[in-house]
């Protein structure tokens, strides 16, 4: 079939179903997905981990064969003629598909050869791409030595070497700092406009949906809807409100509002709590605390996504916030974590350089930063897993240099990716982690019972943790970290990849723990989650750029141009300030 240039729909899927039979794989199936992508648009494929985004991308790229249904890419049947499809699309897989031991230029050369770009056209195209991505000064650098954001842009440049008609980007913004994320979006829009491309990109960040012309919502392999973000928002017009109650902790206000009748979503946002109501319901002032101020706000995409998910999954609240039954924490105001001029060097590279902060009992303290900013290294030092090269760190009054094991016994630690034993059942995992912390006999039985009850894991008690949905894995990991009633909880990227409902539930639990006096230290790359912290630091290249409450951070960047900045605005502003201070010649892409 000839590729006609005036096709309106660049991509058409009808009734596509894909199942994975292997018992090892928990990859999602796609069920009867039909959709269309119009020429010249930027379409976002949005859904949490496990929704089937990657499977859908791979089907379109001809890497997977659907069990049933049709996929047509620019009029070519992707099932029968994958090679032809591959000649007209550009596909950037997760992790960008770069050869880290090749230089920037060598990666470009390779993909130019593979895409069949004639030698004569190369110098001009290379110049154009490296200029657009800001990689021009680094062409001789090994790809492995680039920062996360630069890798992402190189990955994109490699896909674009020979301009594709359809650009598929699979989670291009995961693990990349907000500055690079903004740059990527502006590049994609420029491409669509200047080179007449169509872009389909998947993301787990809901706020990115608003940047798309059109959004495809995917949840557990099913299509929840396809529309423009504005249309999604319009559907729930009049149901979003902002509630402000001065003088009360925002976290406790949030958990109270979340339990109020008719509220389907409550998130901390800026100075108050954003709530979304059920259809045809208004916030009921009688049931709300005195002095609360509730104003209608324009809906955003995320509100409608949550609303759609609630319709689908039913409404589920945590009625009783789990009680850790923690040993009485130190009197409030006591320093639980002290980091003083901590430094960690690997060879000549400083992963953490002169970092200082203190966390008081019952505080939720956040470490924010892009990949490679030094968050995880700081964490490992605080857990006594990595000795500091210099400086002093103490946890619960114990110096980690002298008593790392004793300090660890007071910490609950939830590692990135949850580090559970996939082959063990939920019950066995809990038994293992509790005995690892020295629990036995009646006490252990009682704690396991508590964990199954409070985290609503009873129905999964016998299934292996590998089979659990991600949200349940996260619950189990948190339960495991709390078995020994720690006073201090360390959470390393606890919500990464988890769907928005599970994330909300998670934060409700954390708020409950903080209320009981548990001190929480958390890293996250979701900027809006920083709002749940009492105080936070923003890190870049191993040092702290700023410290303060979320309000402080936003206040720092408030200006006439940006009257109501978000956490992400604040973060980007601080990073850019840092970059320009460090290299005055740095070229920053305008967003």
């Amino acid at each position, binding site marked *: 079939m000839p590729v006609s240039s005036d096709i309106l729909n660049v991509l058409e899927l009808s009734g596509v179903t894909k199942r*994975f039979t292997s018992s090892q794989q928990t990859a999602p199936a796609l069920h009867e997905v039909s959709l269309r992508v119009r020429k010249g648009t930027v379409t976002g494929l949005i859904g949490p981990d496990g929704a089937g985004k990657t499977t859908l991308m*791979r089907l379109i*790229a*001809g*890497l*997977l*064969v659907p069990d049933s249904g049709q996929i047509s890419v620019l009029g070519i049947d992707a099932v029968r003629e*994958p*090679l032809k499809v*591959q*000649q007209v*699309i550009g*596909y*950037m*897989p*997760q*992790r*960008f*598909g*770069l*050869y*880290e*031991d*090749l230089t920037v230029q*060598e990666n470009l*050369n*390779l*993909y*130019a*050869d*593979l*895409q*069949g770009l004639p030698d004569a056209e190369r110098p001009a195209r290379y110049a154009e791409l490296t200029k657009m991505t800001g990689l021009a000064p680094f062409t001789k650098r090994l790809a492995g030595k680039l920062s996360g954001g630069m890798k992402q842009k190189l990955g994109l440049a*490699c896909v674009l070497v020979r301009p594709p008609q359809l650009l598929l980007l699979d989670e291009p913004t995961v693990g990349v700092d907000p500055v690079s994320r903004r740059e990527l979006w502006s590049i994609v829009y420029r491409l669509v406009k200047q080179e007449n491309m169509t872009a389909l990109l998947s993301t787990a960040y809901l706020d990115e949906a608003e940047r798309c012309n059109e959004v495809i919502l995917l949840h557990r392999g099913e299509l929840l809807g396809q529309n423009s973000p504005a249309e999604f928002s319009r559907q729930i017009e009049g149901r979003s409100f902002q509630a402000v109650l001065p003088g009360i902790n925002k976290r406790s206000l949030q958990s109270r509002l979340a339990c109020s009748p008719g509220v389907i979503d409550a998130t901390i946002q800026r100075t108050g709590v954003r709530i979304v109501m059920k259809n045809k319901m208004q916030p009921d002032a009688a049931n709300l605390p005195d002095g609360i101020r509730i104003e209608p706000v324009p809906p955003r995409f995320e509100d409608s996504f949550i609303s759609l998910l609630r319709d689908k999954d039913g409404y589920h609240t945590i009625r009783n916030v789990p009680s850790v039954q923690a040993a009485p924490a130190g009197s409030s105001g006591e320093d639980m974590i002290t980091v003083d001029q901590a430094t960690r060097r690997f060879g000549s590279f400083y992963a953490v350089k002169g970092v200082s902060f203190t966390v008081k009992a019952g505080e939720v303290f956040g470490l924010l930063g892009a990949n490679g900013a030094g968050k995880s290294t700081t964490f490992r030092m605080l857990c006594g897993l990595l000795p500091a090269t210099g400086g002093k760190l103490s946890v619960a009054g114990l110096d980690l240099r002298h008593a790392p094991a004793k300090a660890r016994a007071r910490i609950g630690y939830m590692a990135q990716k949850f580090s559970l034993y996939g082959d063990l059942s939920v019950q066995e995992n809990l038994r293992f982690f509790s005995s690892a912390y020295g629990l036995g006999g009646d006490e252990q039985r009682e704690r396991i019972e508590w964990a199954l009850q409070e985290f609503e894991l009873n129905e999964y008690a016998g299934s292996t943790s590998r089979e659990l949905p991600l949200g349940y894995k996260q619950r189990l990991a948190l339960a495991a970290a709390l078995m020994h009633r720690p006073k201090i909880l360390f959470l390393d990227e606890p919500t990464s990849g988890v769907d928005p409902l599970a994330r909300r539930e998670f934060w409700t639990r954390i708020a409950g723990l903080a209320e009981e006096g548990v001190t929480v230290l958390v890293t996250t790359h979701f900027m809006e989650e920083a709002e749940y912290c009492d105080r936070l630091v923003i890190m870049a290249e191993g040092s702290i750029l700023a410290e303060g409450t979320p309000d402080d951070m936003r206040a720092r960047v408030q200006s006439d141009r940006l009257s109501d900045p978000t956490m992400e605005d604040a973060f980007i502003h601080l990073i850019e300030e840092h970059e320009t201070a460090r290299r005055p010649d740095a070229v920053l892409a305008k967003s």
Partner: protein
Amino acid sequence: MRFLQNPDPERRAGRMRMRGMLRKEALQIIRDPSSIAIAFVLPIVLLFLFGYGISLDAKHVPLAVVVESPSAETAGFAASFEQSEYLSPQRFGTIQEAEQALIHHTVNGIVWLRNDFEEKLLSGESAPIGVIINGVDANTARIIEGYVNGAWTSWLQQRAAAHAGTLNIPVRLQPRVWFNAEMRSRNFLIPGLIAVIMTLIGALLTAMVVAREWERGTMEALMVTPVTAKELLLGKLLPYFILGMGGLLLSIGMAMWLFDVPLRGSLLLLLLTSALFLVAALGMGLTISTAARDQFVAGQIAIVATFLPAFMLSGFIFDINSMPAAVQLVTRLIAARYYVAILQTVFLAGNVWKVILLNSVVLVLFCVFFLGLARRRMVKRLD
């Protein structure tokens, strides 16, 4: 140069893709110290280990000689052991002392002449000699047994000559060792070792580098480019073929000039048959890589399915004819077996065409089978 000006755009694009794949692989090999290590450092280590460290020859084996009542006859007998370069005898007065020495591993065997040895010998009775050998290492034990037998036979001959009579042995053994006249184990170990080295480069290294592409997510990126499955395979095959031939030349050079292994056949024949085996090994590596998507699994499969058989079932160290019949059947499925036969023939015997051709034909079958299997299984799909 009509070929280069071929106007067919698809063929031109195909050549361009091959160029990209080959250049990329070459750069990766040069930059990755582990490929160089497997292709060149490992062969050197193995060659040194087998060339110098491991020897199946028994030389200067410590042996206890117990003479309970020394006399002229016993002195002559004991002296015959001293003449042998394979044995280094130590004298003991009593069997108890000698047994202690055997237990403490200071000697590997005992030759025991009792009190009545001379008396019986002179009276014409048969005079028994006790021989005790440490049988823990059966191989060495058998060798010692042979040497001791040899030593006392030569003593008997000398004695007969001295007594101006002829020894009454109706059959005389006149051993003549062919192909490896000095019976140096190095001479057959090192050619066989080349098969192991080629397996390492062809199968293990290749399976691991493809698995690495899966692990790092680059394979997925390659697959969505217009590159064909055939080009993907060739892009891995050619660079590692060259690397393997490099390892081969290094091994042959070291064998000939460092370890003085004779090369009696033709070098060209050796290179050609080695190329054949290398392609078969690459085929195995690529087949493994179509099944294993992380380096750990690929490495495990390659070691169990290719490296260990090449080591143990190829006749490189252990003689196939002395294996149980069932195991002998299994060795027929091991490509390295045919290559080891060729290697040992070309190095030690020369161009014995019948052996070489027969084994080469089998190697060709292996090449066709594994390359075909890899090609069949190499699909540009992820499921």
